[in-house]
């Protein structure tokens, strides 16, 4: 029985941890499908986490926080769009610039506004997205297997977790079932053809960046107002990069990307559970090694499954009309 409880707890934290990853990976997917490499997911996430935590702390409402998080992230996405589309700059460099800028600016502003040494105040539960109990969770609790699956595993997550999972079919629908989605994918594969058809490459790419900004904003808000209770320096801890790796592992497709995010989240949940636990054969693993686990797995996955064959063909290449 204890084993089953362990599995349940592990799956539960996997779902919880996966929310920001899924949202960020979908953001990266939308941008890259439109031909813009977005290595600045990490920075946008961190900026949104800071924006959401600050606004929620001041207003007392997680919704104001979410709005602020999305706003900040969209602005940064547009900046990246401007550099990539109008300036035809190096997209990796621009993304990295955003990452570094935010890593400095967020604690600077936090320090100036709240004087807490680069953090935002701890949020009350009213100012956070807290656990939602799904209907009938209490009643079904007693039912064997299904009951505990439903009430322990599926129920009791924050709105942001449900939202993250809901965004996967939404994004998939937009990409594969709408005219806009078709154009967006085309602009990442063959912008010349899109241009020839009389559709603005520039406009489409900006629209993709706005979608990426919104998703990344939700991701960062989830980090600081659902998973956590406030902004802490460097709280994204490489998750933006993990999300990119998940997107590559998921072959730039929404559902496989979701599965990859769940795998990363599972490894992260596992490393949390492994801390201080004595394993058969190896004994207790030092905490520093369990912390390494998600990063090592990322490298292994990239090494094993990466490759350029599935990447959108025009991703990372600025479009020049007069060529």
């Amino acid at each position: 029985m204890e084993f089953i409880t362990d599995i349940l707890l592990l799956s539960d934290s996997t779902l919880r941890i996966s929310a920001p990853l899924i949202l960020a990976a979908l953001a990266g997917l939308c941008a890259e499908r439109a031909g813009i490499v977005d290595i600045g997911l990490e920075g946008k996430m961190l900026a949104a986490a800071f924006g959401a935590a600050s606004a929620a702390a001041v207003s007392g409402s997680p919704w104001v926080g979410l709005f602020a998080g999305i706003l900040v992230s969209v602005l940064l996405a547009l900046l990246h769009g401007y550099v990539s589309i109008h300036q035809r700059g190096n997209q990796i460099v621009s993304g990295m610039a955003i990452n570094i800028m935010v890593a400095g600016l967020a604690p600077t502003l936090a320090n100036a506004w709240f004087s807490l040494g680069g953090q935002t105040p701890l949020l009350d539960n009213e100012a956070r997205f807290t656990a939602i109990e799904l209907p009938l969770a209490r009643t079904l609790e007693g039912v064997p297997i299904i009951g505990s699956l439903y009430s322990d595993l599926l129920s009791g997550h924050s709105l942001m977790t449900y939202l993250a999972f809901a965004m996967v079919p939404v994004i998939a629908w937009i990409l594969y079932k709408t005219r806009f989605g078709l154009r967006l994918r085309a602009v990442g594969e063959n912008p010349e053809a899109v241009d020839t058809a009389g559709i603005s490459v520039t406009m489409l790419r900006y629209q993709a960046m706005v979608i990426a900004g919104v998703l990344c904003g939700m991701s960062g808000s989830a980090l600081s107002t659902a998973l956590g209770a406030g902004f802490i320096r460097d709280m994204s801890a490489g998750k933006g990069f993990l999300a990119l790796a998940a997107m590559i592992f998921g072959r730039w497709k929404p559902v496989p990307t979701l599965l990859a995010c769940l795998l990363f989240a599972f490894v992260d949940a596992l490393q949390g559970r492994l801390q201080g636990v004595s394993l058969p054969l190896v004994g207790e693993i030092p905490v520093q090694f369990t912390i390494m686990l998600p990063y090592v797995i990322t490298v292994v996955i990239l090494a094993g499954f990466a490759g350029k064959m599935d990447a959108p063909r025009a991703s990372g290449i600025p479009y020049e009309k007069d060529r």
Partner: protein
Amino acid sequence: MSGGPTKLPGILESVLMPFLNILVALFISGLVVLALGEDPFFALGLLIEGAFGYQEAIGYTFYYATNFIFTGLAVSVAFHAGHFNIGGEGQAMLGGLGLTLAVFWLGDTAPVLSVIVAIFGAALFGAGWAFIPAWLQAYRGSHVVITTIMFNFIASALLAYLLVGPLQRPGGQMPESSDFPEGVGLMQFHELLELVGISFEQSPLNLSFLIALIAAAGVWFMLARTRFGFEMRVTGQNSDAARFAGVSVPRVTVIALMISGALAGMMGLNELLGEQLRLIGNFTLGYGFVGIAVAFMGRNHPLGIVLAAILFGILYQGGAELAFEMPNITRDLIVVIQGLVILFAGGMPYLFRRPVTALYRRFALQGER
């Protein structure tokens, strides 16, 4: 564009435009200072005073600059080969580890030899830490930006483990190693100057600064005068062309990224062998990332990198004094400036091409007509 693009004279292209870009970055930084409720000009005054006001400050400025020369060169060598090595942090940490192992291995018996071995140890371990991401990029197509950032996290955890485990100072509580044996270390600048009879206040500035300058000269020589440097630049500019010309692109990628890692690894010389004289956890303090800004600001030219490194040395030393005087300004502000410099100098190098070209046409070309 009317009349087609005009070719600008070299001086406008390589000096004026980067200068304008950096000016914009600094201007926005000034706006941030203003938004924090402080006077930017007063802050600038404090910063310059803090960086040059007295001998010790000058020593510190060049001490920080030394770190940035190493990490800036590291980023630029990779960039010349067409890759973005953001793993300078991790490579520097491993370099520090290599250096420390060499010192503990030979330090007691042969202090001078141990310093020489330590210099190579730092480069070797830094290069080694870059090897796996480099190989994966070259032969598996794994994006080096993602793998190197993962390797930063892994290096940090590895060092943390070693410094509370096998390498921790016996009986100590802090994540740091034992002190290096007596007599092991790089000579400090004030000691050097004393030898020739000049007195200079004590500061952490040490021989590593000269090693960094030699490294910069070496990188220049490699890029400009060797066959490999040429192959590297061709690969960076057009890997297809390089392949057709018979260059082994994967081989060039691996070697370039390893040289980059070795340079980043040598940052430990300055911090550990020049000043701390022991291995401490996270001694890299983000200097690996500063290298990115330094490389772009210096336009990936070794001389430019040395100058940009000194400018960032001024920002770091002056910024420390500034943070002391103005409570609203912390060292994080320098990270913001780094980001802005990367954005404007690296991401938008052509921001001012149009206005500068227009002005150039109006004034310079008019004379010819």
